[in-house]
């Protein structure tokens, strides 16, 4: 007799799975697992660069509409205080944008956490945010493309917000999509005031193309 234990089939995630309407349960399971793996690699990269153990949350996957994107994001981040954020786009077989949201206290603490002089100037601090954000996004993109055996490339990161309330970072009126697939995970450094969220938004056409990619992936297991 064997007892297996699956993170993706807990009751909280049942609702997640049901809300990813366009996918079958198998496809949702596979997607959740691919995202788990990719996010785990991102966490490992972050842990190495910070020299600290990083606690990972269970990745959440949602289908969001442009109308409720702000509410979904602020609920996920559970914090409407000031944040700093960077963004990066990815393209090729999957298209979308990744955003890394840093809780402000952690962003301020980053230099110290990474062993730099703490009196860095503004540009040097921005550079650190970009560096860490790029590291997370790069690791997730690599993880997804390696697991799904599909090619992905990504752009240089850019600063999206500094010391801005989270609900002002995304402006729905300026967004040109109606639905997106959103994947979220957060990373916390124990004993330190550091927390960041990685949000990956995939576009509508990607939601469709992902279906075929997931099927191929499951056939390959």
């Amino acid at each position, binding site marked *: 007799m064997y*007892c297996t*234990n699956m993170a993706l*089939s807990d009751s909280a995630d049942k609702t997640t799975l049901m809300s990813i309407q366009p996918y079958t349960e198998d496809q949702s399971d596979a997607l959740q697992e691919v995202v788990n793996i990719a996010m785990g690699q991102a966490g490992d990269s972050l842990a190495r660069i910070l020299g600290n153990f990083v606690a990972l949350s*269970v990745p959440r996957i949602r289908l969001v509409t442009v109308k409720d994107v702000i509410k979904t994001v602020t609920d996920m981040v559970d914090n409407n205080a000031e944040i700093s954020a960077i963004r990066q786009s990815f393209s090729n077989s999957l298209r979308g944008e990744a955003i890394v949201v840093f809780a402000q206290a952690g962003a301020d603490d980053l230099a110290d956490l990474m062993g730099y002089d703490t009196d860095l100037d503004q540009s040097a601090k921005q550079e650190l945010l970009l560096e860490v954000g790029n590291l997370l996004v790069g690791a997730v993109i690599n993880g997804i493309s390696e697991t799904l055996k599909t090619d992905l490339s990504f752009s240089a990161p850019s600063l999206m917000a500094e010391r801005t309330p989270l609900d002002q970072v995304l402006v729905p009126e300026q967004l040109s999509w109606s639905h997106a697939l959103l994947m979220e995970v957060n990373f916390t450094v124990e004993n330190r005031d550091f927390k960041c969220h990685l949000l990956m938004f995939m576009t509508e056409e990607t939601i469709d193309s992902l279906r075929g990619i997931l099927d191929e992936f499951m056939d390959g297991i």
Partner: protein
Amino acid sequence: MTPESLEKWLFVPCRHNGISIELTQAENGEEALAAYRDGKAEVMFLDLTMPVMDGYQVLEQLQKEQLNTFVVVVSADIQPKAQERVKKLGAIAFIKKPVKTSDIENVLHEYGIV
């Protein structure tokens, strides 16, 4: 790790050795412990990142209750510190996701489970 994929991974080594297995799936850490207490698990494949009760808590509880089982942690959290921690908490092995059949086979062989 879906039940189907785990079954597939386990099926090959088990059939080779003429062992039949039964899988019980737990929804979270608490259910896993309950299943274990019911005597439903000789080997537990345990994920780390779970809601309600995570993998570390399950391991701690097993230690506290002095329950002896083979716990194989299967996790996407591949930080060396995570591996250290679970070993300290009594896990016999740490298998990184994505899982390869050979990884599972090796562990089962090493501990003479199959």
